């Protein structure tokens, strides 16, 4: 027995029977990404059960949606995923456009891609920085926010807001870009590109980070699909699915002509179009490290898409087109559309009785489904791994509680 204990100190932990204890984590815990309360049933350091309690940020968005017109709902979608509000605006706008069978101008289409992908970078930067915070390292957070701030400056210039944009709207966008914006965006990308290596040095290849995330919270493909997980959480488990490529015609048409490869591990390796570190030996597909790494790859991918969008947008000389009228009536019927938001597949379901006010406005949140899987991932892990697992799902509570 003695030699066993010498080999692995954790064995002591499992050998000693202690009393079961309920530990409350949150709702205002720094590593729960907003107001999420987790109740942990623990036996010593080992968690036997995790129960997430949500609803602290419930603001009745769906009920509000039944009382205002489709375009008036755009600002409420901002406040769902406030870290990627452009993508949320886009999701709702496209769902309404699908119901109305409306097609935006070519110029608006490219501008939407540009803005949405730029916002994806910003959202993944927060995800990365906050994940570092969860694991107890403060500096990556500052490095991530330094760059994110520049993206927010660009957004502020374009639409006047730093977080809740309401820029993309039903039928197009509220305004065109100001002069000189594209140059500033390009110079940002140029300056940002080498910094990604810095992030990889700070986190991706950091020995402590790898120890904390590799082989932790392993989610199988089947589990991810069964729970309806999506986005980097799904792709981190090796499922090759991205709505920008696999989604409905109205959404994939937006990305028509754009070249990008879905960030997913295929045949044991990730698409290699950029200089990035090798997968650590301890990491298993579906663990926290892979979920994190998929996000890092998507930052590069989005950067590439932004560049392509800049080219196409500046080549487009046609008009941007005006958004639809605030009180434009929708045809009776229903439409459901899922778009690829940074956190996953955000679905909007809209039922109309023929008026401008939706009969039912349903938001299917990606973080909601991604968080539901927590109790499966945390079963049998150590208490210290709970923040690592929840953080790797990169949830945003505003979207879960709506």
């Amino acid at each position: 027995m003695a030699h066993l204990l010498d080999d692995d100190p954790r064995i002591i932990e499992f050998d000693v029977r202690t009393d079961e204890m309920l530990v409350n984590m949150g709702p205002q815990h720094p590593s729960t990404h907003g107001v999420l309360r987790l109740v942990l049933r623990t036996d010593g350091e080992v968690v036997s059960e995790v129960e997430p309690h949500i609803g602290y940020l419930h603001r009745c968005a769906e009920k509000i949606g039944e009382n205002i017109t489709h375009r008036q709902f755009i600002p409420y979608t901002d406040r769902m995923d406030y870290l990627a509000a452009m993508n949320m605006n886009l999701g709702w706008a496209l769902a309404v456009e699908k119901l109305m069978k409306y097609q935006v101008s070519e110029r608006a289409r490219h501008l939407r891609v540009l803005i949405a992908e730029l916002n994806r970078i910003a959202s993944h930067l927060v995800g990365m920085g906050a994940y570092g915070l969860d694991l107890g390292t403060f500096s990556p957070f500052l490095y991530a926010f330094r760059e994110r701030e520049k993206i927010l400056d660009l957004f502020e210039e374009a639409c006047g807001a730093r977080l809740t944009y309401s820029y993309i709207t039903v039928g197009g966008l509220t305004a065109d870009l100001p002069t000189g914006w594209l140059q500033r965006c390009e110079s940002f990308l140029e300056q940002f590109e080498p910094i990604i290596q810095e992030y990889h040095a700070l986190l991706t290849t950091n020995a402590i980070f790898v120890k904390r995330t590799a082989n932790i919270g392993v989610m199988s493909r089947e589990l991810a699909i069964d729970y309806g997980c999506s986005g980097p959480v799904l792709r981190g488990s090796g499922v090759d699915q991205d709505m920008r490529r696999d989604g409905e015609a109205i959404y994939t048409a937006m990305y028509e002509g754009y070249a990008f490869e879905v960030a997913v591990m295929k045949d044991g390796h990730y698409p290699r179009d950029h200089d990035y570190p090798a997968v650590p030996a301890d990491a298993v597909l579906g663990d926290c490290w892979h979920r994190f790494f998929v996000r890092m790859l998507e930052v590069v991918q989005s950067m590439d898409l932004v560049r392509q969008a800049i080219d196409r947008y500046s080549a487009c000389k046609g008009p941007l087109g005006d958004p639809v009228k605030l009180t434009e009536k929708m045809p009776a019927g229903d439409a459901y559309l899922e778009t690829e938001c940074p956190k996953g597949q955000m679905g909007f379901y809209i039922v109309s009785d023929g008026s401008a006010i939706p009969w039912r406005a349903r938001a299917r949140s990606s973080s909601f489904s991604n968080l539901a899987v927590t109790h499966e991932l945390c079963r049998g892990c150590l208490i210290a791994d709970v923040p690592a697992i929840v953080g790797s799902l990169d949830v945003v509570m505003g979207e879960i509680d709506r």
Partner: protein
Amino acid sequence: MRGPGFLEQLEAAVPGAVVGKNLEALDPWIEVAPERIADVCAWLARSSPVRFDSLQCVTAVDWCEPDPKKAAKVAWQPHTEMVYHLWSTPARASLVVKAKLPRWQADVPGQPPEIPTVCGVWRGANWHEREVYDLSGVWFTGHPDLRRILCPEDWEGFPLRKDYEMPLDYHGIRGR
């Protein structure tokens, strides 16, 4: 999208379950008898040629017009409509399954209508059904842990019902 003879196969596997369909709609849907929903979903997820292995969204739509003047003009009878959005990862295809429920069980106001749970088919249905119960007031029979999820546990009424009235007071907090 779902291959020829899809509906016939479903009819052979779960006879009499499909009571309506619209395959020309924006999102093609089939309507099933509410008591057969779990059987239909189990077939769709496990045995159908296109395996719908993921449940994306569960919604309840309350068809009720509280204003009696407007209610006289509508073409439908008051009911609650369940909408399930299914997704097939291998085929990258979607399907909508609908089911019509009465607004209240046995027309007793306050008594939620019942439908079998699909938790046994997709584990992800758990939270979605809890949310529908919480906000729209539909009771999922056989659900392992059906309680409110977004609203506090002692909340009364189902907010997404069209005739819901905002409480004037909640533990001393003014509602208006």
